[in-house]
């Protein structure tokens, strides 16, 4: 996106940066030494995310990311074996 274009347009899905809004992303690769991870959204777009607040993370983990920083991670009891985390629906949650 051009830096001149305001992020907040009428059909934008909330403000992911400064509002109290966060997005779910999946970890693709981890740079443990720097506390960073490349994460992707459901459409495949990827960004670099600071994961120091939720470390350690592994590829396949799902994170709640706000302003480029992961603030929550999928609870361990809801995570399957590492081999199951790359694809498929997550565990059932009853609202």
């Amino acid at each position, binding site marked *: 996106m051009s830096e001149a274009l305001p992020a907040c347009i009428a059909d934008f899905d909330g403000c992911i*940066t400064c*509002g*109290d809004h966060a997005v779910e992303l999946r970890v693709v690769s981890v740079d443990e030494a720097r506390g960073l991870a490349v994460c992707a959204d459901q459409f495949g777009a990827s960004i670099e995310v600071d994961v120091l607040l939720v470390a350690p993370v592994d590829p396949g983990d799902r994170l709640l990311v*706000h*302003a480029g920083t992961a*603030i929550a991670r*999928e*609870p361990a009891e809801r995570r399957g074996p590492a081999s199951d985390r790359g694809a498929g629906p997550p565990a059932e949650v009853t609202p």
Partner: protein
Amino acid sequence: MKFVDEFRDAELGGALAREILSTVEPGRHYKIMEVCGGHTHSIYKYGVDDLLPANVELVHGPGCPVCVIPMGRVDDGIAIAHEPGVIFTCFGDMLRVPGADGTLMDAKAQGADVRMVYSPLDALRIARENPGREVVFFAIGFETTAPSTALTLKRAKAEGIANFTCMCNHVTIVPPLRALLDSPDLRLDGFIGPGHVATIVGARPFQFIPADYGRPVVISGFEPVDLLQSVQMILRQLRESRCEVENQYSRVVPHEGNVRALEVMAEVFALRPHFEWRGLGFISQSALRVSDAYADFDAEVRYSVPGVRVADPKACQCGEVLKGVIKPWECKVFGSACTPEHAIGTCMVSPEGACAAYYNYGRFAREREVV
């Protein structure tokens, strides 16, 4: 983690709407405040308020950080942006927030190097790539965003990036809630608590609301089923004469919050003695500044900040909207002189703002109602 899917289930939503209908007492009017701008956005986007009985009213609180920033702080930021050699970075919302004499977008048009970033890390990257320039990050947001800024300042210090500073406008959620509860012109029955702020601070900071003011709080997620369930939980507390903090968003919010985030915030920030909030005035200990240990990265130390104080435009009633005293459409300039394209008030600038959320999603339903 399922943050989204089943929480948009129409059948579940319908069942909750019926439960809400059976929980309310006929003849009683309920006013419930959603504190967070993200909740306001979801309520209008998904038409959650259309599923509630007429006697359950949702009041939109001060939880949009862009909406509560006073015009003077924008002018201070613009003054720094015009400093020679400065690259001024901020989130997209801030570009269009009006100060007394234009916006950061206007400053960019006048020649200032103002750049939009998606995270503080992006701003730090710009500083690494431009060692001959000074990069300032305009930090804004509640406790959800503050850890991101704090971690970035720690990185800057660790890497010795001397050309990076932060103009800190981070605010805290509890003091304005207390100010609202002390306001004599406000009557509320309960609060929908901010889910992602609570992810950081936990549930404990909200205990004062039931303890000191006798109002229930339900910390809520952001999907329509989350919000309906939270309303139902508040109504159930009222019906059972209970008053406590409940956590509807337990799939994300741990009771103790994110301890690492709180530690890094305590290291990098310090409380300001007071801070001005748009529509609410000065509130004690309601905002953060860069701590003395990180003073080298504090833009307000490095630059001479004018400290401008500006009265809000008289036509704009953002203050009353933020306090929940009036609805967005009751403002004199809503949808006429003030629109997202030409915002007078900050509540119309950010999609988290009650006016913009209502303008984008709610006004058509209301037009149908009026007809």
